């Protein structure tokens, strides 16, 4: 994936020079290992700031919401699916965008790597499929496929679904992936077990809403958790309120979530918030044969109503 960067810079420079876009949204090198920072450049002289590696896990569709400029955006598979959703939901217009598609081979899980070592990880490099982790007094080589973010390891849409330029040839999609084994495991639990499972899952939540804010789907002017009339949820650490937040957030993403993993990546306390959305993704697939952001001109199933929709209660 490192090889992509030249092509990305070349395209970005061309787009800026030709005046086709006002800015290019991409990543710049972070100040920490395994961290890149979403950023923009408006000047073709700055294209060298743009980077691309296995630490670009943030979903860049999030940075397009309600922008008025013409934007060149670097988009891996999940980003492009969220861009599709953004276009459908009027968050940005298609003709504002030049999508620089990046076929993706997955992002590495920095939390997983951090947890593998007792002392601080100070440097991480990648070359091909090998990732080298260095710290005070240690160095270890890891296989990239072993340290992928969970969502990336299960991804079947690595190639962008919608793009104007391509930074590299398309990659082979993963096949025979069991994406919902974990969901099935939870589905099989008794109600009591499930309850306990989810209680434990969200116990560390500090209600910073990083999961919500990292998600490109969450763009309401006022989130329901911030509404005061009526006040749907309280502001304290009350467990019912926390639970309500997580459940409702997930439901608001039903049929729209691309499993980009931004929520989980952003959580400062490491909650596996995708456990909620995965279940709804699975249900949407099972019930409506639907995957979010794949069809550029079709609204998600829960956004439409037909009298013929399944559900005897309608009659």
């Amino acid at each position, binding site marked *: 994936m490192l090889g992509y960067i030249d092509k990305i810079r070349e395209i970005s420079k061309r787009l800026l020079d030709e005046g086709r876009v006002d800015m290019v949204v991409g990543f710049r090198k972070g100040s920490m290992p395994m961290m890149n920072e979403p950023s923009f450049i408006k000047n073709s002289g700055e294209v060298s700031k743009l980077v691309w590696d296995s630490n670009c896990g943030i979903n860049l569709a999030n940075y397009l919401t309600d922008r008025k400029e013409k934007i060149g955006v670097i988009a891996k598979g999940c980003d492009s699916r969220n861009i599709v959703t953004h276009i459908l*939901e009027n968050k940005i217009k298609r003709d504002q965008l030049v999508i620089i598609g990046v076929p993706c081979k997955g992002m590495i899980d920095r939390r997983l790597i951090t947890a593998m070592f007792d002392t601080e990880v100070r440097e991480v490099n990648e070359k091909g499929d090998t990732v080298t982790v260095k710290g005070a007094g240690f160095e270890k080589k890891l296989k990239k496929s072993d340290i992928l973010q969970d969502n990336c390891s299960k991804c079947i849409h690595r190639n962008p679904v919608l793009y104007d330029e391509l930074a590299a040839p398309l990659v082979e999609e993963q096949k025979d992936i069991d994406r919902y084994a974990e969901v099935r495991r939870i589905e099989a639990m008794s109600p009591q077990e499930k309850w306990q499972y989810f209680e434990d899952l969200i116990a560390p939540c500090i209600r910073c809403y990083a999961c919500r804010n990292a998600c490109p789907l969450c*763009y309401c002017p006022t989130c*329901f958790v911030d509404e005061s009339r009526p006040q749907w949820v309280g502001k304290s650490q009350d467990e019912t309120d926390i639970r309500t937040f997580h459940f409702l957030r997930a439901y608001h993403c039903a049929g729209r979530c691309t499993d980009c993993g931004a929520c989980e990546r952003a959580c400062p306390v490491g909650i596996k918030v995708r456990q909620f959305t995965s279940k709804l993704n699975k249900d949407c697939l099972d019930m409506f044969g639907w995957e979010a952001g794949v069809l550029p001109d079709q*609204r998600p199933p*829960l*956004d439409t*109503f*037909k*009298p013929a929709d399944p559900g005897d209660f309608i009659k």
Partner: protein
Amino acid sequence: MGLAKRKAIYVQYAQAVPLKYTIDKANCIYFIKKGKCGACKKICPTGAVDFDQKEEIVTLNVGSVILSPGFAPFDPTVFDAYQYAKLPNVVTAMEFERVLSASGPTMGHLVRASDQKEPKKIAWFQCVGSRDMNKCDNSYCSSVCCMYAIKEAVIAKEHAGKDLDCAVFFMDMRTHGKEFERFYTTAKDKHGIRFIRCRVHTINPVAGTDDLEIRYITETGELKTEIFDQIVLSVGLQIKPEIAELAKRLGIELTEGRFCKTETFEPVATSREGIFVCGVFQGPKDIPQAVIDASAAASAAGEILSEARNTLIKHKEAVTETNITGERPRIGVFVCRCGINIAGVVDVPKVAEYAKTLPYVEFTTDNLYSCSQDTQENMAQIIKKERLNRVVVAACTPKTHEPLFQETLTNAGLNKYLFEMANIRNQDSWVHKSNPELATEKAIDLVRMAVAKVALMEPLKEAELEVNQTAVVIGGGIAGMSAAKSLAKQGYETHIIEKGKCLGGQALNIFRTPKGEDIAEKLSGLVDEITKDQKIHVHLDSAITSVDGFVGNFKSTISSNGKNDVLEHGIAIIATGASAFKPSEYNYGKDPRIMTSLELDKKFMEKDPSLKKIDSAVFIQCVGSREPDRLYCSRVCCTHSIDNAIELKKINPDMNVYVLYRDIRTYGEREYLYKKARGMGIIFIRYSVDNKPEVKPEGEKIMVGVTDHILGRRLSLEADIVTLATAVIPNRDEKLANFFKVPVNDDGFFIERHAKLGPSEFATDGVFLCGLAHYPKPIDESIAQGMAAASRAVTLLARKKIHTSGTIAETMPAVCSSCGVCVSICPYSAPSFIEETARFFPGKAQINPVLCKGCGLCVASCRSGAIRLKGFDNDQIFAQIYELSKAV
């Protein structure tokens, strides 16, 4: 009705309209003793009593007359054997109905007349005063008694409990109406009501008790004696002599049964032009049929008067709406007793007393019947006098009564949305009958919730919209054509959408009416009339492929031969018909001599010479009807088969004709045909559903095996033809149902707005129903319903403008995220985006109040919480939840 005493000055019943007292001249001392007494006149503060009121003769000039003089229940006094006059515990069904009624003399408590004892065993005798030439002159079937007897038996069990033994003695069980057969089956199987096929001859008192003894013969031929606490005579309907007199004066022809004579193709026209008939005077019938005829008669009158429409009407003066802006809520709470329906369980005064303590409540009271006219007027007075600006009625369901109370508010100058109902009947007194204390508590909770909500209600505006004056009729059968004809004659452009290649529908397949009219001839006349009418546009080979819009403004796409046209129309009538069932039993399809009724009709129509060669014919009834997977009676087949049997007998009087049946259902005056058939020597053999006849072609003949119910032996009939009276199967059209958002029942028939009071329309505004798509019915009833649907449609079209509901959604653009879910999800296309160039809130969603139906889909799906449903606002619902939480 002789069940209880009433005073010489009385109101007929508590909800009577108009609710005025009247003097019973026959029992008033003033009138009996010529001027003595007169106390009422002295005491009446308004001077309303006037003994000198004389009959006045008023002359009215009218364009048309509709006769609906009704019927009298048969008086069984003449039956000596039943000793109705002597035995207090022998009652008529009407009397029993009063005993069951909450507004009746016993307030719905089931007791017998002689000793106020709760009966343990009750018997119903069917056909008292019907189907009887010996003791009375009424040889017709009264059509309604079987069904009402079952209903009474079921309700009696509901009142008295499971242990009550109910037995119905009958000849044929005639449950031919929509959903009736299912009710009958449930009564039998679930409620355990006994049905005994026997006409009981005599009722004898049991000496020393008030009980009644009867003897009857069971189906197996056994003689039995049984004692009942009470016997209900299912008396028939008959036309009063004075009505027959009236008819004579008017020069109107009557039938043998003294009903008004009508033609099949003009079911509500009397023999005199301009005079129409409906109700039981047209023939014995139940409520839905009476309602259908009534609308048909209105339509018939409208057809001849359409040029004078709106020339004589007066408009009600609108009451100016009080502006309540900035006023503190002043809530009035009216708690309804609903006779004993509510008060019998819930402590109504306690609820009313409690309501006084609630915030903003300025006035509370309880009413015997909140829906009665005087209470309505009184409520309006109270609203004005107490300066109430919000009203709660704790009574029954808003589904039926909210519009009534809202009108009361309007009449009192209040915006009708400043109103809330608490359903303390259907959701309380009815379901918690056995727990009055908790029911009272629940009523208190419901009232508290309603008060909390109503305090937050605000006046809502209704939008006005034009009604497109064009009509669309889907289906060009006899019902659809009748509807179209009536609409066109009343001045409305009408389109008939017919999927087939010609008009006519099932009527094309039928030989003649039971009254002897030639259908083909009449039908071609009608088709001719339709085709020539300039206002009617016939689309053959056509189907509706999509429907947008709503009442007053539909937009339908009609696809004809691959060509699509968009038609704008204000109303739609669904008349998609039904067809004949093709059975797989009785070797049908394997031998040309085994045919359906319609196939036999075809032979008649073609004057098939082979008919003359038949020596023996067998009819088998209920083929595909009244069976577990098709639990309805097809209504037309008994009459049809008997008529055809008679025709065969006419062709060859020596022919052996057998009708194998389960119950003969020649309701109303069709009964004469049954009688005639028997007179002609047609043999009727009853079979039971679990022991069906067998049909086997054997050489020259077809052998039909059937078990004779009297002899209990298997008979073998030799037949030349076997006619199967097959079921009427609806053309189940789920797509159309979805287009117009109208429901279909399990059998595939459309579900009307109300089984009794709204038989020819749907709950969806602007969509109407007629013909076989509603339920199997003969031609006269189809035509009547076609006209009725037209009449119902005209009431809407004539308004030209309609008001939409004030209960609609509204966006709060500041919170809107422009995601477009509302735009995508709305079935009525009400939400849209504000233009990008707009000064305020460009790109945010807005809702067209005219298009919004208040369904709430957008409200529920808006993630940003930017849409509110007026009248069901979050505040209001939370206020209710908060009050509910106090109950726990």
